[in-house]
């Protein structure tokens, strides 16, 4: 045995410093959003209280627009590269999903910034104040927090990073960057404070639990591959001579973390409570943008790192997809609260997205990306309608309260009917074209699992049509209840968000080919 020598600091530090190559243009969308969010924090610290809301909204809106333009610019240049020392992959799916996130983010921001519906806005200023205390009664009268804007921007920058992340470490950081603001946003609802706090706590605890799974899986995959980059894991799986035990255990644990975020069964239990308790504009944001981001990440992990393990993954994720569709659809039937109904519908939609993802083909990828964009618009518009139906206690979300709404407010009820038909997948809506695309992609593979998934998908779509149509029937054919809620006149922001959501749902249903083509051209990961 040699005697050991203790390395001097100079020896330890005799490292070859290699600075990462950074393509700032490709990273611009994320940098802009992160910078604007930091600026937003300063605005909240230094700007006078009465002008904060205006400044914050304008800042966030401009930042998102600039980010969108930066994404479009990258897409026009046709960038396909790995940058930041292969930590980021700028490719078709990244740019498509980042663009989707920016647009959906703008629409959701309109709902977050709406203050016409409620005095002081839909948020309170401090999430942690105990319900029923003197301070709680005081803040109920005060103006709400404007921190929601920087938080939304932080979340969006994290989501954009998440869909671009090309290694597990970057992905984990992005996961936390977009999750932590969401936990906080959930707790800020002005009405039903206790439910809101409960939602945030549940989301946080379960989210932290899922993150722990993710990071443990990451450690195991590092043990297997000796690297955390997706390309490296792919190569290691290809060349592996050792037992793949670490690979599959690691993949399973990473998948738990990701499936939690997309709300797939059995990792879905948080969804109804969080969707119900969070402020409705935040629920809209989560239902649209979190789904896009989390699914983008999952698609990249499956298609880039684990495509060689496809045959081993398929039965497991396929079973999860079937369970997700069944549980989402069946439990949606029993719901009596409109927000919980949409939560279960969002669970079932995660199942449909998994059907597209499991096709493991270019068509599967492009159809899943199209589905994400189409579903995002519809779901934001649906939650925008929910913010309008109100009584003295805030939003009237119990389904029985919606009875006879068609008579009182035919326009709003008509819009909601259209959105419900879109969720149900009736032709001429984006719900039909997107479901058609994912099921078509799965059938195109022509193997047993995808076909089985499509059969379950069609059956559960029919089950799901029932709760949607029940709401429609209730609005138009039922007698109004004794004290029916009033439909608030939407402010300019909510009107704009509704208009964009409804128009996109209609256009993507009638004339989907431009966006389908775009998704098709974008549907190629680089490694």
């Amino acid at each position, binding site marked *: *045995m*040699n*005697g*050991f020598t*203790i390395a001097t*600091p100079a020896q330890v*530090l005799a*490292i070859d*410093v290699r*600075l990462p190559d950074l393509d700032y243009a490709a990273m611009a969308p994320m940098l802009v959003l992160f910078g604007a969010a*930091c600026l937003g*924090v*300063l605005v*909240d*610290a*230094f700007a006078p209280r009465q002008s904060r809301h205006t400044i914050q909204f304008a800042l966030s809106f401009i930042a998102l627009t600039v980010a969108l333009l930066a994404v479009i610019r990258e897409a026009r240049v046709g960038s396909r590269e790995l940058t930041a020392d292969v930590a980021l992959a700028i490719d078709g799916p990244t740019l498509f999903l980042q663009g989707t996130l920016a647009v959906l983010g703008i629409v959701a921001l309109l709902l977050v910034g709406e203050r016409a519906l409620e005095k002081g806005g839909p948020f309170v200023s401090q999430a942690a104040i*105990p319900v029923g205390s003197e301070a709680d009664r005081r803040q109920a009268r005060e103006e709400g927090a404007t921190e929601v804007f920087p938080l939304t921007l932080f979340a969006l920058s994290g989501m954009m990073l998440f869909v671009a992340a090309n290694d597990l470490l970057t992905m984990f950081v992005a996961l936390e960057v977009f999750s932590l603001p969401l936990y906080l946003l959930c707790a800020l609802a002005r009405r039903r404070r206790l439910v809101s706090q409960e939602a945030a706590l549940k989301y946080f605890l379960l989210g932290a639990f899922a993150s722990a799974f993710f990071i443990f899986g990451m450690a195991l995959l590092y043990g297997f591959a000796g690297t955390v980059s997706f390309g490296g894991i792919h190569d290691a799986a290809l060349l592996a001579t050792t037992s793949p035990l670490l690979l599959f255990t690691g993949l399973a644990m990473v998948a738990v973390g990701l499936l939690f975020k997309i709300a797939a069964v059995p990792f879905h239990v948080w969804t109804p409570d969080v969707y119900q308790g969070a402020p409705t504009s935040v629920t809209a944001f989560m239902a649209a943008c979190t789904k896009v981001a989390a699914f983008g990440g999952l698609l990249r992990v499956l298609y880039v790192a684990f495509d060689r393990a496809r045959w081993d993954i398929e039965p497991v994720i396929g079973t999860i997809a079937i369970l997700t569709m069944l549980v989402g659809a069946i439990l949606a039937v029993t719901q009596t609260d409109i927000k919980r109904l949409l939560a279960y519908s969002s669970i079932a939609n995660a199942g449909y997205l998994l059907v597209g993802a499991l096709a493991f083909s270019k068509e599967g990828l492009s159809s899943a990306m199209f589905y994400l964009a189409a579903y995002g618009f519809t779901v934001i518009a649906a939650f925008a309608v929910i913010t309008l139906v109100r009584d003295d206690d805030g939003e009237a979300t119990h389904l029985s309260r919606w009875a006879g709404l068609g008579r009182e407010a035919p326009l709003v009820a008509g819009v909601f009917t259209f959105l419900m038909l879109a969720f149900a997948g009736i032709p001429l809506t984006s719900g039909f074209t997107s479901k058609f695309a994912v099921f078509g992609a799965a059938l195109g593979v022509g193997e047993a699992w995808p076909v089985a998934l499509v059969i379950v998908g069609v059956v559960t779509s029919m089950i799901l049509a029932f709760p949607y149509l029940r709401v429609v029937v209730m609005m138009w054919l039922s007698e109004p209840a004794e004290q029916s809620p009033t439909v608030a006149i939407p402010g300019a922001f909510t009107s704009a968000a509704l208009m964009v959501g409804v128009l996109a749902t209609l256009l993507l249903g009638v004339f989907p080919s431009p966006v389908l083509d775009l998704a098709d051209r974008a549907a190629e990961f680089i490694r």
Partner: protein
Amino acid sequence: MSLSAYVPILALFALATAFTLFSVGISQIVGPKRYNRAKLEAYECGIEPSPEPVGGGRFPVKFYLTAMLFIIFDIEIIFLYPWAVTFADLGLFGFVEMLLFIGTVFIAYAYVWRRGGLDWD
């Protein structure tokens, strides 16, 4: 790499154990034992540990806030130290990166300061 590289770690572990045993033991033997109420209570950052107030009760979070702020700077130091040691190698790029990092931390700090997070009462 042979396992001998781990010998210093083992030695450190042994030293730490010995130091702990020695200092606990010696204070048992030579230390004065004059108890008062505060000394006998369990230590819990500003919370009355017992009796537990009904329904959880309210407790001041000031200590937590201070501790959290401390962690921000603590983590900053963790990154600052290796950066300072390799400053020459990292050059301008590293300098700007570190400025960005410190800037971000200070934005959070400015927010805490303006929002009264540093006021004790």
